[in-house]
């Protein structure tokens, strides 16, 4: 595995995402958060800081999700569409390096996006805090620029890394439209895995419960990465939980990327 090759491919993905106008999402995010901070104060009975915190985290997650899905599904399919895959695999570049480089590039793109969004978000919250009186700030559950919210940002990045891995996996064998549908479906289904776990309460002793139980362990649990509500209300998120969620995400990512490498390695491009 040539690290320099991986780096070059990753940077190429990043450059292409910039060409695809991904940074416009940053402008959209900044406008959304700043506009909301101005308007929301009039209609929320003093809850504008809380709402900006929720809005910022949700917007990071949603913008990141769309970037992850709609660029992720095109990571491989675009190469096939443009027929550039032939020139790439003709070079001394392993197929595994191509997949890993693509993955790393999109992760880097997402990380840069989320980092910039986080900075803008903290700036807006800092400004809102600066405008308020000390007496009013005493009523807040946590400071406006509470650094503990970075835990939620970190887990959002882990979740998006998982979504990218899912999108990349599907992009190695499915058409872009189907890859997007499957990725989004898994994202949504991952939020309902708790229902699968308790499905035996509904079906009783039916063999169906083994299937649902198996699906519960197979599907990625997307809700595990959601600590937005806790950080906004200054509730502690144990470091052990963050570690476990990271390890959980890493296992799924490794499995999906390995599967993507295996599938791509066996595709015949003739």
């Amino acid at each position, binding site marked *: 595995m040539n690290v320099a090759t991986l780096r070059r491919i990753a940077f190429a993905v990043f450059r292409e995402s910039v060409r695809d106008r991904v940074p416009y999402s940053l402008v959209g995010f900044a406008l959304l958060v700043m506009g909301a901070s101005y308007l*929301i104060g009039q209609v929320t009975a003093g*809850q504008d800081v809380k*709402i900006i915190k929720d809005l910022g985290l949700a917007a990071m997650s949603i913008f990141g999700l769309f970037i992850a899905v709609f660029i992720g599904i095109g990571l491989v399919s675009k190469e096939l569409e443009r027929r550039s895959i032939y020139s790439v695999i003709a070079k001394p570049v392993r197929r595994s390096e191509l997949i890993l480089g693509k993955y790393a590039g999109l992760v880097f793109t997402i990380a840069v996006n989320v980092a910039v969004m986080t900075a803008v978000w903290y700036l807006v919250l800092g400004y809102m805090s600066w405008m308020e009186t000390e007496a009013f700030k005493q009523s807040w559950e946590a400071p406006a620029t509470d650094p503990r919210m970075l835990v939620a940002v970190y887990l959002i990045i882990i979740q998006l890394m998982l979504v990218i891995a899912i999108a990349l996996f599907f992009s190695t064998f499915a058409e872009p439209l189907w890859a997007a549908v499957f990725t989004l479906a898994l994202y949504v289904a991952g*939020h309902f895995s708790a229902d699968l776990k308790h499905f035996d309460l509904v079906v009783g002793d039916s063999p169906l419960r083994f299937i649902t139980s198996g699906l519960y362990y197979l599907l990625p649990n997307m809700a595990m990465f959601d600590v937005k*509500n806790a950080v*906004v*209300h200054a509730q502690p998120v144990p470091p052990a939980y963050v570690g476990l969620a990271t390890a959980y995400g890493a296992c799924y990512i490794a499995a999906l990327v390995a599967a993507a490498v295996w599938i791509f390695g066996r595709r015949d491009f003739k």
Partner: protein
Amino acid sequence: MQSARDRWFPEVASPVDEIYFSSGEALGRMALSYKSLLADVYWIRAVQYFGGTRLDMKNGVMPAAGSGRSSYDLLYPLLDVTTTLDPSFNIAYRFGATFLAEGYPNGPGRPDQAVALLDKGFANNPGRWQYLYDKAFVYYWAVRDYRQAAHWFAEAAKVPNSPAWMPGLAAFMMGQGGDRRSSRFLWQQLRDTAEQQYVRENAEFHLQQLDVADVADRLTTLLKQYVSQTGEHPTSFEPLIRAGWLRGEPTDPDGVPFTIDSTTIRARLDRPSKYAPLPEEGVPSPPDSAPQQAPTR
């Protein structure tokens, strides 16, 4: 063309409910990991709904039949959804309870819903003594059940980190019951400790209302003295002004004049004064009048 359409074919407001999903659990499922944000949306809706309805009442604007605005009947469902989506949404419980308990037409006059909301808040956040304090306040102010108020002040005192004055307040409530002094004390505590400006302003309003009630009592005392001395039963304050007992026509801080209830020989204040009806002293009286029946949904 849009302007022409709006002019020639104005939209008819359809009497549909403003709350399309009344189940917070179902909404929470649909919201995936964005429950907090959806809770904020419902919170904004609840604030706008309450404010809009209250403004309509103040301006004498009659809400359309079936619109849900005649008696604030959507306020509790909106707050219930908000707090189901975000069980830690502190201000939704406290703000919501304060204004659910407000007497009609300033609020729905539903202390039972206020108590239910605060019970939910405490169940989700057992460390927050403020919810039990607010519950005691609802029993004190809206229900006039001083025994229950004292009980819940005592329960609030048991929660760790509750303020040191809480046990004293419970004892005070048990001993004093419904006198104006205890009311003034409670509203002052609320004004001085509330986290939200709206709640502080509401407490300040009630303190002013107590001051106006004191003025009404002094006028009543004066009236009774006048009656016993002159044998006359005045129907206005004009005789007292002519006799030099009063310098001018007594009014509330906004200039609305007091009137005389000639049956009971008491000074009173009626609408459009914002301070009416004035709080009664002493014996617990029934809760403020509210719509007899909330419209069924």
